[in-house]
């Protein structure tokens, strides 16, 4: 898909496939075209060119929307409604029968931890409370696909954990979750798969289950010869940061004993051998590069 506003290209050439039943992270710096892409997938914006299929039908199809939930970034709604009324309204708009809503409304209010505030008007809600009730409205009709745009912004750590648990529960019941968040630590512990986009194009994608295997090892040793460091390339990428330090990135933890044996066999005196898992933030920065300004 491509989206152009005047002479500004918001999404250059987005091409991606999202597997069903997974939590899919959509990452990119500010202005990368994430929100515009989500809008096109939801039918809120029309692509300038290209097309998208959601749950087997063209993006924006009215019947498919019955099976989609959406939490917009900075969720806002009619402030004169109470939390219970908001869920009731969204349930009805999503086609949930009245009789089911009688049970579901209190159940979903409880699920997002707002039972004490169910009769309170939204105008008295904090940003975090609005995010919670916004999440509930996205889930009230038990959709097959859920788009969450920054669902944890404005939430305290307890709220984030609650949202994380809800997202996982949705996946466990078979739903697909399309998650756009700047909180990489959240993405890291929640998502099954992520894509990185920049200037409206997919730069790369990662399977987070494989990502857990990738290890970076910081080594401090004396007598590190050039031959010894070159020999490390057999298990991954290695480079010397100074006379006594070398960093090795290897795709599997299985390489750890081999690396250590190689160092010792090559005559190095090893003082430190510290395996570290590469954080998503480090990966993000390594892919996106330094901040180049907006």
């Amino acid at each position, binding site marked *: 898909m491509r989206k152009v506003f005047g002479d500004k290209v918001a999404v250059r050439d987005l091409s991606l496939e999202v597997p069903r039943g997974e939590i899919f992270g959509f990452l990119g710096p500010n202005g990368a075209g994430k929100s515009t892409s989500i*809008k096109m997938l939801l039918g809120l914006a029309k692509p300038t060119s290209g097309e998208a299929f959601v749950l087997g039908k063209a993006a924006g199809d*009215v019947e498919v929307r019955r099976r989609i939930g959406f939490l*917009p970034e900075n*969720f806002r709604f009619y402030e*004169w409604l109470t939390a219970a009324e908001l869920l009731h309204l*969204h349930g009805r*708009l999503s086609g949930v029968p009245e009789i089911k809503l009688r049970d579901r409304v209190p159940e979903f209010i409880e699920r997002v931890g707002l039972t004490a505030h169910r009769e309170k008007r939204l105008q008295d809600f904090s940003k975090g409370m609005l995010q919670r009730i916004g999440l509930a409205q996205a889930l009230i009709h038990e959709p097959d696909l859920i788009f969450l745009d920054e669902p944890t912004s404005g939430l305290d750590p307890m709220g984030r954990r609650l949202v994380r648990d809800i997202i996982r529960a949705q996946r466990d019941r078979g739903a697909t979750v399309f998650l756009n968040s700047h909180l990489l630590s959240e993405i890291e512990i929640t998502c099954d798969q992520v894509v990185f986009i920049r200037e409206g194009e997919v730069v790369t994608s990662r399977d987070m289950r494989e990502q857990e295997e990738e290890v970076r090892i910081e080594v401090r040793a004396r007598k590190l010869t050039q031959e010894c460091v070159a020999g490390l390339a057999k298990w991954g990428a290695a480079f010397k940061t100074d006379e006594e330090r070398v960093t090795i990135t290897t795709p599997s933890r299985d390489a750890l004993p081999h690396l250590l044996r190689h160092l010792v066999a090559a005559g190095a005196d090893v003082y430190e051998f510290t395996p570290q898992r590469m954080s998503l933030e480090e990966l993000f920065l390594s892919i996106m590069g330094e901040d180049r300004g907006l």
Partner: protein
Amino acid sequence: MGTWIMAGVTFREAARKKILWTALIAGAGFLLVFGAGLHVQIEDFRTNAVPPFLRYQIVSAMLMVGLYTVDLLAVVMTTLTSVDTIAGEITSGTIQAIATKPLARWQILIGKWIGFSGMIAVYVGIMFGGTIAEGYWIGGVMAEHPVRGALLIFLECMVALSVSFLFGTWFSTLTNGVIVLGLLGLAFMGGWLEQMSGFTEGSRLATVGIVSSLLMPSEAIWRRAAFEMESPLAGSLQFSPFADVSVPNFNMIAYAVVYLLVALGIAVYNFYDRDL
């Protein structure tokens, strides 16, 4: 179904946000002043020997002024309450949570339109009915065709509502408000120019008025409503500013209905076609 849910929530919004109640309280103030004025005038008639014919003319003219005020209040309230509903919700992003639900965009827009229509019908009904009732019970005069008059005033409000929806799908709330009030001002001026042309028999002035009415037919609808409500005698005597010297014919009312439908149709298309 979705259309009626949107209509219901729009109507409830007016009640919850106290728009309707505030307007009705202000309207009650108007009815109080209007009733007091009528009462004082009737008392004056008792102390001063005013011929019955002149009494009738004065009270009829007061009733028409009262109904004209109701007309202005209804159109202004229609504009002020509706100007933000589409434009504001697009700007704030509120519309996104609705437009991703399984309902077509036309259902959202038409549902809101129906909701506002219901609210305006209540307002016009109470204000118009109150004024007519005061005219009858206090002043002893009755509009000639009150139902036709009420329906025409309601039609005028629907024209303003549709224009507000139309420009709300294009522009921000503020710009939309400026455009709709500007068009109402144009229609007001054009309507009075056309009325003046009737007194002076100036055909070029009438043309200016007609062109204004074609651009925005709201005031033309009021002049037809005034013609329907004023007694034939009072209208023909050219005593009041609402005298039937230049009355829009049925074609103008039909034009206003078509104008309303076209405005609403373009609004639906714009809303369907635009990014939210």
